[in-house]
């Protein structure tokens, strides 16, 4: 995309108006084009404000009653997580081949990566992700993922973090976006006991039940 007028793509991308294949190509282009990343981040703020351009209404009271009644009937499945301290060896970032190949490759990468032992038994390692930079800190069984230089997800898209236990299918964990500077500080909810890999993919807003794209970040634990 180096020769094309990428500036025109940035606004269309931020508005969600590129065709899916174009959006994918532009996302790849942004990995190496800081100008477009900045442009998209700036346009994303405008897109976030656009809902206010719609005529403003009050949500109907009946809708409120229905939503709160449904919430009462369906308590969320999570309970407060305990955080027993346990040391974990760390992770690695990965390029973008198929998931199975990534998992195998990263098991090897994890062996190569050095582990930095911080205060209180915290293990930390800075890794190179396929897009941007990533650092995972594991304190006991709690994980914190910090990413930098990650392009903002396209409108209607969001980053989703997954926990994988061995060879089982990755389970959805948490959703996150990035700041206008491409950074995010993501607490990994719950307990990491038994988790072999932490993955990050780009998914439709609201998240997916199973990954629909190739992982951008893969962290191999243990």
């Amino acid at each position, binding site marked *: 995309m180096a020769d094309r007028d990428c500036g025109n793509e940035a606004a269309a991308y931020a508005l969600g108006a*590129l065709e899916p294949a174009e959006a994918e190509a532009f996302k790849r282009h942004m990995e190496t084009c800081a100008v477009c990343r900045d442009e998209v981040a700036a346009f994303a*703020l*405008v897109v*976030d404000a656009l809902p206010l351009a719609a005529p403003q209404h009050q*949500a*109907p009271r*009946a809708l409120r009653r229905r*939503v709160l009644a449904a919430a009462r009937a369906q308590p*969320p499945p*999570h309970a407060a997580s305990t955080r027993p301290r346990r040391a974990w060896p760390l992770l690695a970032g990965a390029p973008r081949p198929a998931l199975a190949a990534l998992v195998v490759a990263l098991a090897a990468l994890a062996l190569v990566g050095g582990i930095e032992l911080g205060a209180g038994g915290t293990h930390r390692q800075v890794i190179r992700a396929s897009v941007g930079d990533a650092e995972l800190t594991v304190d006991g069984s709690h994980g914190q993922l910090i990413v930098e230089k990650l392009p903002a997800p396209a409108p209607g898209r969001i980053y989703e973090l997954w926990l994988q236990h061995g060879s089982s299918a990755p389970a959805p964990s948490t959703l996150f976006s990035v700041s206008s500077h491409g950074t995010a500080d993501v607490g990994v909810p719950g307990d990491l006991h038994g988790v072999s890999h932490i993955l990050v993919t780009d998914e439709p807003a609201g998240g997916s039940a199973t990954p629909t794209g190739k992982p951008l970040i893969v962290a191999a634990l243990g």
Partner: protein
Amino acid sequence: MHLSTRLIRPPDLGLLADEDLMARVYEGDQRAFAVVFDRHAGVAFSLAYRMCGRRALAEEVVQEAFLSLWRSGARYERARGSVRSWVLAVVHHRAIDVLRHESARAGRDIHDEELGASLPADERTELEVERRSDARLVRGALDELPAEQRQVIELAYFGGFSHSEIAELLAIPAGTVKGRMRLGMSKLRMALGDGADVLL
């Protein structure tokens, strides 16, 4: 024996930031969820209504978005720091799904006889006053754009149309559509300035 009781007042959830409320939502706190709903349901419903053009569809989209937030509170991440952005992104995405599933393409038009005719925002609360004020600012910035730039932005964002679909609708080259989008978005960015993220 004299027994005394002490009333422990629950915290005023209305004073908590969204991110703190979401920590409670994660634990299943329905009162916190109600506060989050009250804060953001208005703009979420307005967006859904604008996009779907039908009240029933808009309510369905908003209900789905908030219940998704409730069920997967753990999956909301404060990294972006804006619950509203999260909710609105889900509403926008689902509204586009609804539009694309509607058999009649006319359903994606942004006009509807119901729009603006009912459900005016209640300005009695400070929150509503602020929302109306922010809305005037954004609407004003959009209205300042040349019509052809405003049109492509509205068709893309509120109509869910791709640039190629817009090009076909307006019978103009796709490159022209993208160029107008860029010009319009750049002007909006300048008009809203640093205020764009304050509106979040």
